[in-house]
């Protein structure tokens, strides 16, 4: 049993090494791909613009819940005016990047993984290699970059919609003063908080996209293998996002 555990551990380290090596290959190929704007732009559309509806709806509801919960809690201390501060700091630093990244892994990550996995299963990737087209450059890097570009933008949109959601509940329904809602928020939120949110969403964007393209590209070329790659994308992304969240938060303290 001890031996099995050891083997699993060694396998995990091996996987980690493979992912890092894959990231290195992607980064090395990035400058060449950046010149082909159309490829990247299409992937920004696929990962970003198509995830917009789910991100905006979730942001609205998360913000509204924050408004409601925050109001209930702050009312006990007679400081409902701090609702704007509580909602904005919560959204900009934590909820915005983390929830967006989880949704992004579910919406865009799975799409990337299954698309690449199916390409592998239907031998399209081998066909490209036969034609001397580098599949990493033509297919993988644009998808990776699309995710990396889209993720911080999606997180920012999520936070803004969320703040308006909190404002909708707090100010319009619960009757917090609109002036103190915004002015207290401006007094308490510093530029560092916003940078922290951007840094987090960027880190999550790299992690999610990397996991998705790695799982898809090296998927076992069967229907079952593609399915497993998709599932593992979501599970691994979720764990990595929350782990990175802790790291970035600690780095910004």
């Amino acid at each position, binding site marked *: 049993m001890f031996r099995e555990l050891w083997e699993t551990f060694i396998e995990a380290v091996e996987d980690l090494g493979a992912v890092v090596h894959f990231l290195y290959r992607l980064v090395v190929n990035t400058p060449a791909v950046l010149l082909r704007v*159309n490829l990247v*732009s*299409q992937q*920004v*559309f696929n990962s*970003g*613009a198509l995830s*917009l509806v789910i991100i905006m709806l979730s942001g609205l509801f998360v913000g509204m819940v924050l408004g409601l919960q925050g109001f209930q809690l702050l009312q006990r201390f007679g*400081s409902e005016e701090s609702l704007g501060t509580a909602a*904005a700091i919560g959204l*900009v630093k934590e909820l915005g990047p983390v929830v967006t990244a989880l949704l992004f892994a579910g919406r865009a990550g799975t799409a990337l993984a299954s698309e690449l996995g199916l390409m592998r299963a239907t031998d399209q990737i081998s066909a490209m290699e036969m034609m001397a087209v580098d599949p990493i450059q033509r297919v993988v890097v644009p998808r990776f970059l699309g995710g990396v*570009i*889209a993720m*911080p*933008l*999606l997180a*920012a*949109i999520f*936070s*803004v919609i969320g*703040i308006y959601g909190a404002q909708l509940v707090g100010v319009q329904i619960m009757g917090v003063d609109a002036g103190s809602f915004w002015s207290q*928020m*401006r*007094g308490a*939120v*510093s*530029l560092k*908080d*916003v940078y922290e*949110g*951007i840094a987090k969403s960027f880190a999550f964007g790299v992690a999610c996209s990397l996991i998705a393209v790695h799982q898809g590209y090296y998927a076992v070329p069967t229907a079952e293998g593609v399915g497993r790659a998709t599932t593992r994308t979501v599970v691994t992304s979720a764990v990595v996002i929350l782990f990175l969240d802790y790291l970035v938060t600690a780095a910004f303290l």
Partner: protein
Amino acid sequence: MRKSRTLNLGTGSFVLLGFAALFFLTTQTTSRGLAIFGPAHYEVIAKFDNIGDLKVGARVSMSGVEVGRVAKIDYDLNDYKAVVILRLAEQYDKIPTDSDASIYTSGLLGGKFVGVTAGGADTYLKDKSEIQFTQSAFVLENLIGQMLATFTKSKADAMNPAADSKAEKAK
């Protein structure tokens, strides 16, 4: 061609929307829009015995109007005092040299801020000049300590006559 145009339009509007959101976050949710920076400010020094939990970026106000912000907080090992550097907006350049600076608390549990009360001198504060008259932060613990001390003292005074009267009654 047509398809790629709508696609580019979609990508473009998504990126625009994203950057608009980032812009909103940096300018509208933070106090950056109100911050005083660039060449239009000057700095004055004020030394306090105790600054409580005054923080860099706290408000400096005169009669409740924001005239600047706390730029830096340091400790002076020569006079054993806290050195607070106040960054004041250039437009408020006629603050008399004998003005005094005090540290106040906004609200019951709010943060600390520096209140400046104008004096009567004809000379005005310039860059790097020092405010001489300062009043330290109001520290709740000290006040409670003082209150407890006076309370126990008065209680002890009250106890003694009572004990005397009891003794008299027993007689």
